């Protein structure tokens, strides 16, 4: 049956070593045997993953699988207990300060300042990232996320959707090569979520950004992804091309890997 064939093909890919044969351009992100423990609790149990330049990888997984921990490690916010992470060929352990300038992160926490205006928030981060022409860039971002009207209002007065849009503006302000998205649509009504996804898709496609997204919405995730990964219990249980993989095919896979015991 179609589903079986798909499954077999996926397994071939996921059983092999991390994607990338000799002759491919060097990956943007390389994770080798990355582990993370909090005290005695192992959250990530050995992640091996390559993400190519311009690729869009979507990660699914049940709560507690370690998705946010993985994103935090990718963002340089958390140090892995073991293994190495390379971004753009540089080792994160030694070049963290520099690498972070090429990363943009949107998480479910906005990371913005309530008592500053939208504009002031962007100006602050533009300063931190050492942008050359801040005002022009800020205006352009505000236009792209549709917040020009409210730019002089305090972030405290923004709706959740607006806050997330500003968060995206902040994340892309310095034109990062890599975008990390950790369930950015949390807490948004379907309309706002839709707007957000469109925005992200647009910003992602331009400049050939490498995007890693964590999301719970199967449909959206599968439609925008180049590759799909399933993180279960701190390990990548499943990794495959997203092409032709719709929610109907993916659902049973998800249940299989997640549902079946430890």
């Amino acid at each position: 049956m179609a589903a079986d064939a798909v499954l077999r093909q996926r397994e071939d890919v996921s059983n092999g070593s991390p994607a990338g044969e000799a002759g491919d351009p060097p990956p943007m992100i390389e994770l080798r045997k990355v582990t993370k423990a909090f005290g005695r609790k192992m959250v990530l149990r050995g992640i091996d993953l390559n993400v190519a330049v311009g690729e869009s990888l979507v990660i699914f997984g049940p709560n507690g699988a370690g998705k946010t921990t993985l994103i935090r490690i990718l963002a340089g916010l958390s140090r892995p207990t073991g293994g190495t992470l390379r971004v753009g060929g540089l080792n994160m352990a030694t070049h963290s300060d520099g690498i972070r300038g090429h990363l943009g992160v949107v998480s479910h926490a906005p990371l913005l300042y309530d008592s500053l205006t939208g504009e002031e928030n962007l100006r602050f981060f533009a300063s931190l990232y050492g942008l050359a022409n801040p005002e022009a860039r800020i205006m352009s971002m505000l236009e792209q996320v549709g917040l020009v009207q409210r730019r002089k209002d305090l972030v405290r007065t923004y709706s959740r959707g607006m806050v997330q849009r500003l968060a995206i503006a902040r994340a892309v302000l310095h034109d990062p090569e890599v975008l990390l998205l950790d369930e950015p649509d949390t807490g948004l009504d379907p309309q706002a979520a839709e707007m957000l996804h469109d925005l992200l898709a647009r910003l992602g496609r331009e400049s050939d950004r490498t995007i890693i997204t964590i999301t719970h919405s199967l449909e959206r995730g599968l439609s925008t992804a180049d590759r799909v990964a399933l993180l279960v219990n701190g390990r990548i249980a499943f990794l495959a091309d997203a092409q032709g993989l719709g929610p109907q095919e993916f659902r049973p896979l998800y249940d299989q890997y997640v549902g079946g015991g430890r």
Partner: protein
Amino acid sequence: MQRSEQTLTTLTVIAGLAVLVAAYLALVVAPPALGPSGQNLGPDLTAAQRIIYFHVPSAWVSMLAFAVTMVASIGYLRTGNQRWDIAALSSAEIGIAFTIAVLGSGSVWAKPAWNTWWTWDPRLTTYTIVFLLYVSYFMLRGSMDDPARRARFAAVYGIFAFVSVPITFFSIRWWRTIHPVLFDAQNFGLSSGMKPVFFYCLATFTLLYMVFLLHRMRLEETREEVEELKEQLGY
């Protein structure tokens, strides 16, 4: 494993014997101290003065333990190896015990010497602060659950705390030159008869510290092992 256990047991026995010898030397053998101009001190004070063989070595161990905690803290920050954290914690526990001993013995000495339970001279005051620093160290550790973070924070605090001690001592001494306190805690010199006993006690207390430290570290390591086993078995 067995060999180090044997060594530890031997050391413990030696330390125990050394302490007994020290007690005998300090209380019986050592010559009575004389006043600054060589006069007799009177029965109360002469007896109380023997506290010096306990008080000063305790102070020495308290500082030593604190220093070891600082060094272990630096070691932990540099290597991330948990053994350093265990050393820091163990040393701090022993240190706080000896600090209490310093304060207690200082107080017991002060009463017959100056008819007051306490004197705010620089040394005792500094040791009070040292005690507070130790307490803060443990309160910090006690209020954190994540072991790695707890070790890291405690390490940072341990370094700050120890560095502050000499600075604190000097600041209080400075203050004292403006507001002189009537008593000076260590007004008694060590006569030649007293010196050997004194240094023997110093050495004994150092040995005692090391034995305590090794025991405590071993205890902590065993506890860690038990916790790991529990985790593996799914408790």
